[in-house]
């Protein structure tokens, strides 16, 4: 999935993030990262990843993956309409509206 992360799933490997990966991830996330910040960020991210890598030292053979520490299962709601009809609130923060629509710069494929 994470193309560009040089990810090796064997233990004790180090993931590394280079400058171009930083630029790409920033673009995908719509975060502006100036060119001169990218090198520094890649070093920081590699530091964090290296720290996470330490977890690989724990032996997790025969341990079930855990999704929650609370022991709760996914709560479900009944199929009942209990919301909606609040256009004013939904549009309250919107810079531009027209007849109940959000109005945004033209996005057309």
């Amino acid at each position, binding site marked *: 999935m994470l193309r560009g992360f040089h990810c090796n799933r064997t233990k004790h490997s180090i993931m590394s993030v280079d400058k171009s990966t930083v630029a790409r991830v920033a673009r995908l996330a719509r975060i502006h990262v100036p060119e001169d910040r990218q090198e520094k960020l890649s070093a920081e991210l590699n530091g964090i990843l290296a720290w996470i890598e330490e977890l690989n030292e724990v032996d997790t053979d025969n341990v079930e993956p855990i999704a929650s520490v609370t022991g709760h299962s996914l709560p*479900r709601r009944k199929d009942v309409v209990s*919301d909606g009809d609040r256009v004013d609130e939904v549009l309250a923060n919107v810079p531009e509206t027209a007849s109940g629509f959000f109005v945004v710069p033209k996005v057309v494929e």
Partner: protein
Amino acid sequence: MSNLVEGRTGEWEVVIGLEVHAQVASNAKLFSGAPTAFGADPNANVSLVDAAMPGMLPVINQECVRQAIRTGLGLKAEINLVSVFDRKNYFYADLPQGYQISQYKQPIVGEGVLRLDMPDGTTREIGIERLHLEQDAGKSMHDQHPSKSYIDLNRTGVALMEIVSRPDMRSAAEAAAYVRKLRSILRYLGTCDGNMEEGSLRADVNVSVRRPGGEFGTRTETKNLNSLRFIQQAIDYEVARQIEIIEDGGEIDQETRLFDTSTGTTRAMRSKEDAHDYRYFPDPDLLPLVIPQEEVDELSAALPELPDQIRDRLTGEYGLSAYDAAVIIEERETASYYEAASAGRDRKLVANWMTVELFGALNKSGQTLADCKVTPAALGGLVGLIEDGTISGKIAKDVFATMFETGKDAAAIVEEQGLKQVSDSGAIEAMIDEVIAANDDKVAEYRGGKDKLFGFFVGQVMKASKGQANPGMVNQLLRAKLDG
């Protein structure tokens, strides 16, 4: 039947796989309490969860889960008792969260199968790869303003089932048959209304071509087709386009394409190279969905009879043709109508009256079975009158026309209009005598060897009886008189 396509350099095999997005039939959305109703005012069906306000948390709608399980069971698929919701990240104006909640590696439903009965009588099995639950996006309107797009989030967060087939289809006709069958199953199950015009059922079509039996070619994906005709047009266009490129020595780009409904052609999306880098990861707002086996068993036990089961009864026990059976079972309402009308009657005869006369009259008048004045019992009654010889098939057509107009009972119409078939041999003989007396010359010709004139005499007698004489008896008595 060969599905191969002839190119300039030889034959090509078409390979098609479909991703169908079916809107789950539910009152509220997948993760919020906002309504799913079609046609509301802009942004009226939006909760703060759907609008992705900070701090809002998704809570899953239990009915959507159950509908997905029912659909999985209807597709004879494996139900995954543990499944996981992931975030599929991308930016678009009609996706306020910045990600779609979907299921990636662990969908709620795994492999299944769907049977196609083709018009030529053959059967094809199409593999289902998976079914997963996901949120629909909002709707963008680009034609309201020269430089702006208008966004309506009413559809945002409505539950969809994405049903992914194996690349098992080999022609546009098979792809259409697949969608028709899938739609039929969903409607029988009540898990999706199947309304393609309102967008409740849409398909993405993956198409590639290859030399017969060779390795798969590179495929293209044409998005968001909302009618059977568009699906077939898009496939035909893609097949021709791809064959031409390859035969000219070119290569197919793996890409997403858009279908232009006005020209029937496809064109490449102005693709951003990152468009498919969705960076899926498990949604931290949602725990894994765990389904108790008992819940699956309970839903399975309550499943309605499905088209394949009914079809097997119609072609087996009732002896209908595969074609008649397919026409009758496509809609659940039609199948129930048929079962009610044909109970205790000649099953084939009722099928024939339904598919020819009733459907013909409905088509002609633009009505549906729901508005039809002819009740199942009334149609059965008409067939009953044919079966016991009260009226001939020919008279029955006139009676049916009156039934269709007025909603009256067949027996009442026959009584009122005096259409009862004449099966009294004395009365028929008298008419025959008259016809013979009035046509000496033709009688002589017939007896002189011109056998073909027999039909003329039958016609004259039927005319004399205003169509009410029993045709079998007319034949028999006439022959005795003329030959005797």
